[in-house]
């Protein structure tokens, strides 16, 4: 039996990756219908060793190594969901979700509307750049799916949220795409609550309070935006508010609108490329709901419209850096 009431200082901080692992394990321990499937997740323990030990603990019936076919992985998960199981499909890198596009868009997303019952699946995978992974192992894919009604999307930025949102996703009756930023895997750590907790889908988080400008962001860009906010606070004396969206669909309009109405300035930061990126959608909403509260044009800081480069200097140039955020923020503050 687990000891309860242990003071939190005795609990070890967990990395983002460990938090996901712990969330997966707890849900599988608690609910026999939860199982995982993906490439190399069993015997090998996953490309990032996230599911190491799972095969031994849960057996081959609930930790299924799949052939290299993402369409088959997601298709099998959807089928399993229709007989009452709760599958969690892993994309070894989220870039590889493309072959499963049809399964997600035309099957998973549509079940709720066709039959009244959702396809209760989670599709999770490591996203994002900064790891010198090049164009096929560094992408952010959220905007491919943003136009698809019926797919929920989450992108946690902290170990706490990573675990809590994974649980929320698993318990959700509809398909959830779960984007875990691999740059954060081993770079952020925190002590998590001992009790079972869930971070609800659809609720943003205020990562830093401020009154001068709102940065709307998510994923690894939360850390970077917080760094930029500290620079601006130190050097310019202006307090920037950072809103961590956490859920990309359905988006927490209320949190965005409340913050923008307070600060009157809105800067959107995301890692994916610019055109058709999620920032465009947020700009539209801010324009629709907050036009008369704006004291400066809404702006975006994003990657340019190219694939993620291999070369380290080029990748650094491609990715949004702290300076990119501070210079956009300064321009807006002076406007």
């Amino acid at each position, binding site marked *: 039996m687990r000891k309860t009431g242990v003071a939190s200082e005795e609990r070890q901080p967990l990395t983002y990756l460990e938090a996901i692992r712990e969330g997966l394990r707890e849900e599988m321990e608690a609910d026999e219908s939860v199982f995982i499937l993906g490439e190399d997740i069993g015997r090998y323990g996953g490309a990032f060793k996230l599911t190491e030990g799972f095969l031994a603990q849960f057996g081959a019936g609930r930790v299924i190594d799949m052939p290299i076919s993402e369409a088959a992985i997601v298709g099998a998960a959807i089928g399993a969901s229709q007989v009452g199981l709760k599958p969690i499909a892993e994309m070894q890198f989220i870039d590889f979700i493309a072959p499963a596009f049809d399964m997600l868009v035309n099957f998973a997303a549509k079940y709720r509307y066709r039959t009244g019952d959702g396809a209760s699946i989670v599709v999770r995978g490591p996203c994002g750049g900064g790891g010198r992974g090049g164009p096929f192992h560094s992408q952010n894919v959220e905007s491919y799916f943003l136009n698809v009604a019926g797919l929920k999307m989450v992108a946690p930025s902290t170990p706490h949220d990573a675990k809590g949102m994974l649980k929320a996703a698993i318990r959700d009756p509809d398909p959830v795409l779960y984007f875990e930023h691999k740059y954060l895997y081993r770079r952020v750590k925190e002590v998590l609550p001992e009790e079972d907790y869930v971070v609800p889908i659809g609720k943003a988080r205020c990562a830093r309070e401020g009154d001068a400008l709102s940065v709307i962001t998510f994923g690894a860009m939360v850390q970077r935006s917080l760094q930029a906010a500290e620079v601006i606070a130190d050097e310019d004396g202006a307090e920037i508010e950072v809103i961590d969206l956490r859920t990309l669909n359905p988006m927490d309009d209320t949190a965005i609108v409340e913050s923008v109405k307070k600060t009157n300035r809105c800067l959107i930061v995301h890692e994916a490329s610019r055109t058709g990126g999620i920032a465009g959608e947020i700009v539209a909403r801010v324009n629709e709901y907050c036009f*008369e509260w704006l004291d400066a044009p809404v702006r975006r800081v994003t990657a340019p419209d190219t694939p993620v480069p291999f070369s380290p200097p080029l990748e650094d140039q491609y990715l949004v850096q702290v300076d990119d*955020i501070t210079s956009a923020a300064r321009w807006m503050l*002076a406007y």
Partner: protein
Amino acid sequence: MARVDVIMPQMGESIVEGTITRWMANIGDEVKRDESILEISTDKVDADIPSPVAGTLIEILVDEGNTVEVGTVIARIETEADAAVSAVETAKTSAAAEPAAATAAPAPAAAAVAAGPAPTKIDGDGPGTREGRLRSRSTPVVRRIAAEHGVDISRLTGSGIAGRVTKKDILAFIEGGGALPSGMPTGAPGMLYVPIHGDTLEIKIPDVIVRENDRVEEMSVMRQRIMEHMLMSRRISAHVSSVFEIDFERVGALRRKLKPRFEQDGVKLTYLAFIVKAVLESLKEFPVLNASVVGRKVVYHSDYNVGMAVAMDAGSGLIVPVIKGADELSLLGLARRIQELGERARTRQLDPDDVQGGTFTITNPGVFGSLFGTPIINQPQVGILGIGAIEKRPVVIDDMIAVRLRSYFGLTFDHRVVDGAMGDFFMSKVKEVLEDFPEES
């Protein structure tokens, strides 16, 4: 005659220096405004740089092939024009307007100019209309605040880029109490200027002899706003008032009956909740009372947001919190909202949002003993209902004198859109609902 400096323009946010690759004009040449005078090269773009002004190129300070920092003076042009007028600073604003990310947006090829100590000044290419000037000098939130406070933005000095008036500027201006006196044209002394939509109302202040022991004090900001608002309303609307007497026996009995039950929910049931309910039913039947006039158009509001005038303590002012979506509330919901807004108004804890968006207003002079009033319309609404004292009166019923709980209601309406008959239909409906108020669960 003035000398204008040509400076190395900033060709992009991250560009700090540029190389002069070729001078196309020589010393002594006459140059036209926007005529290319040199080529520069930076690590992101190569560009022809146009002359910022028309004049004579009198000095070249940086030779071909040399690299200098952005902002360095590279040449001087002598012009006929007054320096202050020709001074423009376009590069900073246009460079700043380019996207922040590393996308290679082409930078505009315009020379930045600094003429002596002349301050930056926007002008030139923008539209010359008043609307255009406002647009270039303010942002949506600033225009909204300006409209709410009757501030003429074009009279403010802005601290933003190109002299743009920022939210901070206008709030400081308003807080400084400057909104009216310094914001308004300073015409002849003895005139009061009150902003009304798109215009200024000029009122001659009557001569007042201030004697030795008289006390003179500045109006509070709230007092000034009320003054402006009332004068503006009187000027804009065609006020007509009509008085009805309403029997409160039915509502009085219902109130006695429901009061204990409402108290269990922590809600004080007042006559006002019944009156708001009756007003809402009447507004729904006669929607022209729940409307606004915009030029030659009538806006029929789909929301029913009823404002209730609340006197601040000791008559120090008046504020009108608004019951939003009042038509969706039950009697209990209305009573709760009235109580809550009233408390917050008296303790000065209303949010800006609480006092905006009203579509009809109720005021209650009866609580101070008034028999009935002819209130002034709360713009941009078209009707306001004044509640007189609710008290026992002798009345003739079936040729007998009876003692009944009664009140005079005075409706002031805007004759621009509400005719007398319509106003009285509305009041008849209010009377009918209150005198036969339905039993509510």
